[in-house]
């Protein structure tokens, strides 16, 4: 009988010349990596509460095993990338296929069949997915460990770990997908986990509101995802396939109509905008900070929000052709990224909630990645995704450590001066901040520099090449770098410097967190220091040539048939120096304002200040005449304060925030309200009014005497009989008429 179950048997995949099925065991069986956390989810759900550590040990064990498998796969990939030779079986025998160096591993089985077409489910293992596997399982493991302390007295502890596991499984499943149908599945599953975890404390309405907002905003983007995927299914290659590689190959070979690709890429872009928090669909991301901090670190910084970036990277030919990234014309993707990175950075300035600063910072960094993809700097984007995961997770977990101590996220009310109480957290936080700000030689420096070089806009010293000259985007990127450095300086000052402002009504002083919180912080900050070395620019004279560009070499599928031919920008020393100076400039401006001026004022007035009092003239009056002289003396400072910092921090950022809170949020709210109103009025008018009235009215018509209003329901048998006979007569008449045809 059940031939149905035969569907689970593997079926051979007819693949292209850059895909193989046989490879190292760890690569072929990479599906085990998502499977383990998935099993752990089920086990925790059913048995978690009965276990000694309430399910946490299951989750940690599963994710640790996943990490080991992923690491083994990573090592295997390093070998595979360089040494694998694809063999072709012909009648004459087995022969090596020459000229192919980048061979992805695909392993799939039939999933379902409809309309005579078989759909498969499987894994696609190449550099990109291996990198994601390692990164996701590593961050996830650290977050798991961290959470055992952080949420230790939560009443839904077990439940929390179950969903962490499910999220990890879904994310790993997503990055391993070998077809876009499967990607949708993973995409939505991570969305649901995000929904559940944002709403973890659903007793409070704001939390459940935030969860709803996140899910619904993502759903709006998903409309684009659905339509884009469907368009690709029918348009790409005419073969009706979801297979990522086949779609990409068809596009690379140029067999797909451009208009279909334009539609598909724009639709998918909408999905990316919602998932990866791009301007104007980013508003859910800051709200999502309502969830527990480990969740913010894992989902809303390191992994889930980069799903959109990953999707662009995975389906790069679609966007490359659809948006014509090769030219230097202003394309949608790069521009959205550029706007997002500046907008997000500006917003980060005016936040009082430390997690919101980081959230807007994430928005901004995602903007960098999208912009990089938009200008054709594929490797730079993926590299930034990689480094960002470490330092941003580090920062989030650090903020969690702080919040754990002071029981609040409000920097202005409850923090300040924590450097003394939590020196270890302070150090890791500083490392994360410096990495994020992109200061040499931390991780952020290398990846951000690559993105800026990739814009190809650096023409001062001979140009950097690349896929086009995007000068505007370069400028935005530079500006963003300065902003990033500035707001992180502010954040560090408000949190760790000055004097402690919290502790209202609390007996004990804030204290350093325990080892389960600190160890993940150490590891992440270590990675934030060294991760950048993975992809040293070519021609970096300080090390051996074989140490440069390792990341790009292993990750970027150059030379494979499923990747477009993109040009690479040449790294430029001058650009690196200028970009660093710009970032430093931002940092110094903010440093001067907070660490020098505010600090001094605080000491003078014996108060714990977070800003200079509103209005600069008043602040000068308060600071006294000496201070006034000092300010006037430094004429440049004056311009900074009045011009750049004040303008940026004040009106501009406030205006942006206002736009964010009022215009866009309002638009979202109004849309929702309008939908409900429309629904209600339609229900009242059309449904209850017109259609029902029509039905009731038809009853009235059949009643010639019209004695009672609701004749149809009079309860009198004779009326029913009358209708019955009349209808029978009408039907018979209709029958006669049909015969007459």
């Amino acid at each position: 009988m059940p031939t149905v179950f035969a569907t689970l048997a593997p079926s051979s995949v007819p693949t292209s010349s850059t895909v193989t099925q046989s490879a190292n065991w760890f690569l072929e069986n990479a599906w085990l990596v998502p499977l383990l956390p998935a099993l752990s989810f089920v086990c925790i759900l059913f048995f978690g509460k009965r276990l000694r550590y309430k399910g946490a040990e299951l989750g940690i064990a599963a994710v640790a095993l996943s990490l080991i498998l992923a690491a083994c796969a990573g090592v295997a990939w390093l070998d595979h990338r360089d040494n694998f030779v694809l063999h072709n079986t012909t009648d004459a025998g087995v022969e090596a296929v020459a000229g192919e160096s980048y061979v992805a591993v695909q392993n799939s089985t039939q999933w379902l069949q409809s309309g005579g077409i078989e759909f498969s489910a499987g894994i696609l293992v190449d550099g990109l997915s291996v990198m994601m596997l390692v990164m996701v399982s590593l961050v996830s493991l650290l977050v798991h460990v961290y959470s055992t302390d952080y949420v230790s007295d939560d009443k839904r502890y077990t439940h929390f770990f179950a969903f962490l596991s499910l999220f990890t499984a879904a994310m790993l499943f997503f990055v391993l997908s070998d077809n876009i149908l499967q990607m949708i599945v993973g995409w939505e599953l991570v969305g649901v986990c995000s929904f559940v975890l944002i709403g973890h404390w659903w007793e409070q309405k704001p939390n459940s509101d935030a969860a709803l907002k996140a899910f619904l905003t993502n759903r709006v983007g998903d409309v684009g995802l659905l339509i884009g995927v469907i368009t690709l299914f029918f348009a790409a290659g005419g073969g009706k396939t979801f297979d990522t590689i086949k779609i990409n190959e068809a596009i690379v070979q140029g067999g797909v109509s451009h208009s279909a690709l334009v539609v598909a890429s724009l639709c998918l872009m909408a999905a990316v905008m919602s998932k990866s928090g791009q301007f104007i669909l980013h508003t859910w991301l800051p709200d999502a900070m309502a969830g527990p901090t480990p969740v913010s670190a894992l989902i809303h910084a390191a992994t889930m929000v980069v799903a959109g970036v990953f999707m662009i990277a995975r389906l790069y030919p679609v966007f490359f052709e659809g948006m014509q990234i090769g030219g230097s014309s202003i394309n949608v993707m790069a521009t959205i990224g550029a706007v997002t990175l500046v907008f997000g950075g500006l917003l980060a300035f005016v936040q009082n909630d430390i997690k919101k600063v980081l959230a807007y910072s994430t928005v901004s960094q995602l903007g960098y990645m999208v912009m990089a993809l938009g200008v054709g700097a594929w490797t730079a984007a993926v590299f930034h995704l990689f480094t960002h995961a470490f330092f941003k997770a580090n920062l989030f977990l650090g903020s969690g450590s702080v919040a754990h101590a002071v029981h609040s996220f409000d920097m202005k009310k409850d923090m300040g001066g924590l450097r003394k109480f939590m020196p270890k957290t302070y150090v890791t936080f500083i490392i994360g901040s410096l990495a994020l700000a992109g200061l040499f030689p931390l991780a952020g420096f290398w990846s951000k520099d690559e993105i800026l070089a990739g814009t190809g806009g650096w023409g001062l010293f001979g140009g950097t090449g690349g896929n086009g000259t995007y000068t505007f985007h370069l400028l935005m990127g530079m500006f963003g770098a300065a902003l990033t450095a500035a707001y992180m300086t502010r954040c560090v000052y408000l949190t760790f410097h000055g004097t402690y402002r919290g502790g209202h009504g609390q007996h004990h002083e804030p204290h350093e967190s325990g080892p389960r919180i600190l160890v993940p912080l150490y590891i992440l900050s270590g990675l934030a220091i060294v991760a950048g070395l993975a992809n040293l620019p070519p021609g970096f004279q300080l090390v051996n040539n074989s140490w440069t560009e390792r990341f790009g070499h292993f990750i970027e599928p150059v030379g494979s048939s499923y990747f477009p031919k993109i040009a690479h920008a040449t790294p430029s020393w001058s650009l690196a120096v200028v970009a660093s100076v710009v970032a430093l400039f931002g940092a110094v401006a903010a440093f001067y304002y907070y660490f020098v001026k505010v600090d001094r004022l605080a000491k003078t007035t014996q108060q714990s200040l977070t800003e200079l009092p509103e209005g600069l003239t008043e602040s000068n009056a308060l600071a006294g005449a000496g201070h006034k002289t000092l300010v006037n003396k430094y004429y440049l400072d004056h311009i900074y304060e009045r011009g750049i910092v004040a303008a940026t921090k004040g009106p501009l950022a406030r205006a942006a925030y206002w736009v964010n809170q009022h215009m866009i949020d309002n638009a979202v709210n109004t849309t929702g309200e309008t939908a409900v109103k429309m629904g209600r009025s339609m229900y009242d008018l059309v449904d209850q009014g017109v259609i029902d009235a029509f039905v009731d009215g038809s009853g009235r018509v059949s009643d010639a005497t019209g004695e009672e209003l609701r004749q149809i329901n009079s309860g009198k048998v004779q009326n029913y009989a009358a209708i019955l006979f009349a209808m029978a007569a009408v039907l018979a008449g209709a029958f006669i008429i049909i015969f007459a045809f």
Partner: protein
Amino acid sequence: MNTIAENNWLLTALVFTPLAGALLMVLIPEKDERSHKQAALITSLLTLGLAVFLLWDFDYSNAASLQYFVDTQWIEVIGAGYTIGVDGMSLPLIALTALIMPLVFVYSWHHIPEPGNAKAFLILSLILETGMIGTFVAQDLVLFFVFFEVVLLPMFFMIAVWGGANRRYASLKFFLFTLFGSALMLLSFLALYFLTDEGTFNMLVLTENAGAGIARGTQLLIFAGMFIGFGVKVPMFPFHTWLPDAHTEAPTQGSVILAAVLLKLGTYGFIRIAIPMLPEAAEAWAPWIGLLAVIGIIYGALGCLAQTDMKRLIAFSSVAHMGFVMLGIATLTDFGINAAIFGMVAHGLITGMLFFIAGSVKERYHTLEIKRLGGMLVQAPRMGWILGFVSMASLGLPGLAGFWGEFPAILAAYNPAAGVPEGTFRGYMVVAAIGTVLAAGYLLWLLQRTAMGEPSIEFADDPNITDVSPTEWIAWTPLLVGIVLFGVAPGLIFEVTDPAVVQSLDNCIMTGCEGVQTATSAAGGG
């Protein structure tokens, strides 16, 4: 069309076991409620056993042909035969029906609705089961019609006797709407009988004939009759107004059966009768069906947003979901129709489950008014989570059953059968995709206001509000498992339906329905 006539007692046994059980129960005195419950449960379990045997014994490599085929004379004078058989299209629906009924009886163990009288209630349910399974196996129009109508009366009484406050109005509305549709449907059947050369009600013959020899105008009229007849049952906009009333007033079990199986009779009729028998007319009507389907999707969703009653909201969501099913059917492609069948099964599991939950909520809180509920996750955490899970399934989360009804339907709308206007359907596709956002909106909104937050003061210390009871677990678990199982392995259903659907559309080719022809041949080539 090929038929396989082995084991041909099986379907007859499957159809009439519930009826036999019902007759047996007539003999048991009314007081002995326990025996009645036992008898009903055992009967339905027997039926389920037969259905499982059917699933086991079914020749999946031959899913396109009718199996367990029986063809004997029934009413000689009008040429109506007792013709029954099952193929890949009807098998999932039979299995669904056979699965749902025991769960309903398990649920009834402690939940006989007011005003009691378990005997009558259970007997009616069993008669319903005979009617529903009979409709899915019938291969003769008269037989189909008889079973189709057998379903009507028990449901009417179920609503009219065991319903809520406004039950009389609701039941009458249900009855009149459905009867009106049935009448037109019967008219169409008769027209087919008289206008085809063979003069038969045999569905196989009529399908192979596929409307040959009937003038195009007449075909359109006949199809219109069926369109309304089946459309009322589905229910399609604008024939849907009976549904919210019926669902709101019906007892929990009635709602579950109504949502899980009854609505499928209409869509099944489209797939089994209307389209294969009159492919030319189907092609002409397809844009209109599609239009009503997408209106239904948006309209149902907006209707949901306006509801203040949980059960009514779920009822309106049925309108939206059946819109997806109808959209799949309207594309006239194998993709779309497969999706439609999947959608029917998925909707049966998911919405059936939602109505079970609504029933249990009503039992605990004695109200379904959304704004009075809240904090279910605090007081009955498991039930709250189940509600969340089923909501997710209902809004079409990939990995759960609902997705495979929605997504392929939207997919099919991108590329409908040739002869059906492509541009129009692409428009429908976009609208349907937007419908998924609204679906998420109303379901999560429902979830937030009923399950999340703190319980309202009114119910904060109510001892009645308990978590899921053992009988509820037994009744619900199979549905929950099914939702996950079919979500993870959709091939289990697609594999069965696909050959039958492809062949059904292929049949149109032989009789020259060009539109469907090119579509399927293109699909086959891919």
